């Protein structure tokens, strides 16, 4: 899934929808299993932000290195990571990507350009800057994409990395998912600017705001930023306005959001809008959707079976791979 030259074609549009739906259904199933105590409840749900994540990655090359954000699992689905690996991660089983060392917050697969995520927020920026540096010096033509939230843009590392990448004209793409919340703290009381993209000006890089629920807008802004980076003109900041449909973590009672607000949010679920748009374009109908849902359900069932067959990571694993030599 990649059409970086744009504009967004129909096949890619449908594929983005398919991956968003797989991510959504898989996350829903994970929440069910976690609530039933069958999996670790460590995933930070990403519902509402899938479109921005998947559309952005659709606009990049499949081997462009990515440091992802901590909300949801659509990044990995977008990159083609098999769902059973995510389930194994949550169950600390063999077949996971980090075998219980980092858990589901640290899914990794360098071959798919999935480079991991800093456990402390902000670590992504400086590591991502180093990745961009390596891509540039090794002339790979790749762009390092760093996903982050509006809250994390308040970390010092954002400013250190943005400045450094701009100064050295590194092929980096700062992709902000602005959902307006840092756990329970609203951006209104934590962040001096309404648009994180405004911060790009401080580092002499382009900063654009797009509707994160509009796959086309996200795709095109990301593709433009990637083109600029590959041309050697340096980093860009793309800010996708999104909504966090659920709490910060599984079981978050969200006392900071009213019930009415939460109900309204669900009704604004961007996946509904995406589906209607595909129908309007004649790219989706009832039978196609049913077929897609059936295919996704089967895929998830197969992934669960694979997870159940896998063995728990052996305790001795805890001692391994601190050092390379």
């Amino acid at each position: 899934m990649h059409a970086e030259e744009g504009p967004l074609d129909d096949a890619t549009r449908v594929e983005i929808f398919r991956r968003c739906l797989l991510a959504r259904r898989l996350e829903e199933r994970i929440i069910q299993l976690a609530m039933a105590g069958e999996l670790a409840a460590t995933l930070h749900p990403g519902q509402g932000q899938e479109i921005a994540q998947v559309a952005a990655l659709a606009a990049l090359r499949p081997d462009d290195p990515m440091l992802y954000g901590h909300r949801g699992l659509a990044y990995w689905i977008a990159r083609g990571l098999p769902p059973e690996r995510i389930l194994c991660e949550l169950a600390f089983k063999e077949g996971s990507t980090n075998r219980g060392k980092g858990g589901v917050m640290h899914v990794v697969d360098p071959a798919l350009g999935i480079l991991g995520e800093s456990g402390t927020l902000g670590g992504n920026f400086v590591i991502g800057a180093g990745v961009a540096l390596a891509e540039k010096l090794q002339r790979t033509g790749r762009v390092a994409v760093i996903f982050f939230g509006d809250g994390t843009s308040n970390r010092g590392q954002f400013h250190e990395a943005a400045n450094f990448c701009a100064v050295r004209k590194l092929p980096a793409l700062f992709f902000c998912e602005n959902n307006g919340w840092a756990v329970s703290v609203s951006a209104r009381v934590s962040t001096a600017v309404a648009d994180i993209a405004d911060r790009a000006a401080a580092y002499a890089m382009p900063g654009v705001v797009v509707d994160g629920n509009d796959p086309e807008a996200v795709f095109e802004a990301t593709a433009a930023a990637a083109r600029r980076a590959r041309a050697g003109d340096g980093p860009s900041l793309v800010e996708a306005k999104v909504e966090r449909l659920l709490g910060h973590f599984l079981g978050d009672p969200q006392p900071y959001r009213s019930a009415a607000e939460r109900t309204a949010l669900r009704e604004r679920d961007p996946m509904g809008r995406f589906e209607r748009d595909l129908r309007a374009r004649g790219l989706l109908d009832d039978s196609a959707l049913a077929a897609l849902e059936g295919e996704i359900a089967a895929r998830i069932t197969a992934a669960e079976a694979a997870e159940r067959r896998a063995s728990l990571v052996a305790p001795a694993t805890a001692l391994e791979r601190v050092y390379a030599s």
Partner: protein
Amino acid sequence: MSTREISYGQAIREALAQEMRRDPRVILFGEDVALYGGIFGQLAGLRDEFGDERVFDTPISENLIVGAAVGAASRGLRPVAELQFADFVFCAADEVFFKAGMWRYVHDGAFELPLVIRAPSGGYGFGPEHSQCPEAFLMHQPGIRIALPSTPADAKGLLAAAIRSNDPVVVLEHKLLYARKGPVPEGEHVEPLGRAVVRRQGDALTIVAWQDMLWRTLEAAARLAGEGIEVEVVDPRCLNPFDAETLLASVRKTGACLVVEEAYRTLGVGAEIGALLMERAFGDLDRPLRRLAIPDVPVPTAPHLVDALVPNVDAIVRAARELAG
């Protein structure tokens, strides 16, 4: 191999030049390293030889300096990052301890992280935040190798080994040693990491010391020899990996151990050595462990106040006499 007398600072420069010529993946960056050639002058001419892509100045952004080294190392470069003062490991603590120390483990070995952090430690008149020897803090953290060259030859050999290591290595360069001259092999010179060396043989007492404290200890040892007390001086050279066998063999011979360190006493390297001896050489200990260290106060700025805190030759002689007597 022929040797000639050069300074510790020149030896560092030689190691960098040697490794950068040998391996194009090696890059060098930090504050004031390029145009200025390092604030201690130890990097002069490297930018001219290797160009701006491989030797460049960074902004005052320590998180970025170390984080980018981790990111670049994870993508195939072999970065040598400089922290202008070793104290700055705490400015970049997230990147030093969590990223350099744990990024590989968290991702179950998905990456090798062949990076070096060079950092000048110790010294006089730099003030509390520019004079510390943070080796004990680093030694506590899994995942980080630590080299402590004391002689010009080791400055070259250990730095070269650090650059060739596939793990993060912090090389602490002692500020008072930059000008110290000594024989250094002319050609390629690499000292394996994790091998201590006995700098002076004796049977009355084992003294463990490194960097500036090593030279003070050797002076004390010469004085003690005049009194008929022959002490053995062990230079650990690395704290991770730590060559316990060389130390244990020495203590098995002498039955007594004094650790001299230019760092805070509580939970310092001496404390770890004491615990090691209790665990592995209990039946060989004929005297209680002694430690000479900074008595748990910050390092002041005025040189005569520093002198009041840091172990000196007289103190080493006194302590050794008491232990050996």
